[in-house]
C-alpha cells in the first residue's frame, strides 16, 4: 500500500486548523469566565468575578430567545468550561478526530443560533462570543461562518487521513 507523506497538505490543514480552533476556543471560554470583571485576588473576589461574569453571560444567552432562563443559566455555567477543555484537547491533538467533530457541531450550533437571531432582527447588544461586547451584525455571521468552514475542513481531512495507514507505522506484513 502506498504511504502518505508525514507532512502532506491534509495534515498541514489539520495541524494549523486545530491549533487555530484550539486557541480560539480557549480564548472564548477564558473571556466568558474572567471578563468583563477581571479580579483574580483574593479568592472571594475571583469567585465573585466568575459568578458575575457567568450571570452576565446567562443574560446574553437569554437574549437569543432560544432557551428558558434556567436553560440559559445552565448553558452559561457549562459552555465556557467546555470551550476551554475542548480548546486544550484540540491543541494537544489527542483523539483529534473526535474533538474536531465536537468543535464542528458546536460551531454549527452557534452559527445557527446567530443566524436565527439575525433573521428575526432580535436586538442582540452583545453576542457573547468573546470578551469585547459585540452587537450581532452580518460580520459576526461571516466570521462564525469562517470558523465553521475551518472546522468542517479539518474534520473532513482528519476523517480521510484516519483511513490511511500512518506513514511511520509498521508495514502490514511486518
Amino acid at each position: 500500500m502506498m504511504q502518505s507523506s508525514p507532512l502532506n497538505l491534509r495534515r498541514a490543514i489539520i495541524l494549523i486548523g486545530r491549533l487555530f480552533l484550539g486557541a480560539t476556543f480557549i480564548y472564548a471560554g477564558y473571556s466568558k469566565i474572567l471578563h468583563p470583571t477581571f479580579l483574580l485576588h483574593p479568592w472571594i473576589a475571583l469567585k465573585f468575578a466568575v459568578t458575575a461574569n457567568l450571570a452576565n453571560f446567562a443574560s446574553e444567552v437569554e437574549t437569543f430567545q432560544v432557551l428558558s432562563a434556567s436553560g440559559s443559566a445552565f448553558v452559561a455555567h457549562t459552555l465556557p468550561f467546555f470551550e476551554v477543555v475542548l480548546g486544550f484537547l484540540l491543541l494537544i491533538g489527542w483523539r483529534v478526530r473526535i474533538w474536531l467533530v465536537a468543535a464542528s457541531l458546536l460551531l454549527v450550533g452557534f452559527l445557527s443560533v446567530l443566524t436565527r437571531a439575525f433573521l428575526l432582527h432580535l436586538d442582540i447588544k452583545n453576542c457573547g462570543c468573546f470578551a469585547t461586547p459585540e452587537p450581532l451584525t452580518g460580520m459576526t455571521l461571516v466570521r462564525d461562518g469562517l470558523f465553521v468552514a475551518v472546522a468542517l475542513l479539518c474534520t473532513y481531512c482528519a476523517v480521510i487521513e484516519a483511513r490511511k495507514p500512518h506513514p511511520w507505522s509498521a508495514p502490514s506484513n511486518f
Partner: protein
Amino acid sequence: MSWQRIRAGVIGIGLLTAGAYLSLGDGSALASPVPPQTFNLQDVDLHQTRGSKTAPIVMETFSDFQCPSCKVLYVSTFQKLNDNYVSTGKVFSIHRDFPLPMHAYSRIAARYARAAAQLGKFEQVEQVLFQNQEKWEKSGDVDGTVASVLTPALMTKVRALVNNPSVDAAIEKDIALGKTYNVNQTPTTVIHYKGQTYPVIGVVGYDVLRPFLDQLLSSK
C-alpha cells in the same frame, strides 16, 4: 525522532500560539486590574451620594443615564442595595457621571441630574430618568422628563444651572476619574474596601453582589 517528540513539539507550538493569541488578540481583554488606590472622600460631591461617609464599603458607580444596562443595574440591584446596605450604614454609594459619546442625550441628562443634585433632588431625577429612559431617548425630551418630578420653581433653578460651566466641569472630572480606573464601558462599579479596589464591569445582580459584600464585611 519519535512520534511522541513531534507531538510534544506540536503541543509546545500550540501553547505558544495560544499565549500569543491571548496576548495580542485583544488588549482590552487582558487589561490589568486597577492597582489599589487610596480613596479620598474629600473629593466627593455629596449631592450625588447615598449613605454614610463612614460606611466600611464605598461603591462608585460610573453610569450613563441613556445606557440600558445602567438602567437594569439601577432597577434590579441598586434599589435593593440601598434598602439593605446603604441605609444600614454598610455601604456608601457614589454616583459618577460617565456619559458615553455614542448616546445622543446622555450628556444633557447628566447635566440635568447634576443640576438637580445641587438642589438636593438627585434621587428623584435619577429615578425618573432611568424609569423613562426609553421615552426620552427617542424624543430627546430630557427637560420634560425632569420637569415631571420637580416643582416649577425648582425646575426654573435647574434650567438655570444646566448651562453653568461648573456642571460640565464636574461631569468632565468624573469622566477623568473613570479613566484612571480604566473605565471604558458603563455601568462600571468600583468597590473600595480597606484600601483594596475591585472594579466590577457591567450589570451585577443583587444576588451575586450580596454574598461578596457580606464576605468583605466579615473579612478581617
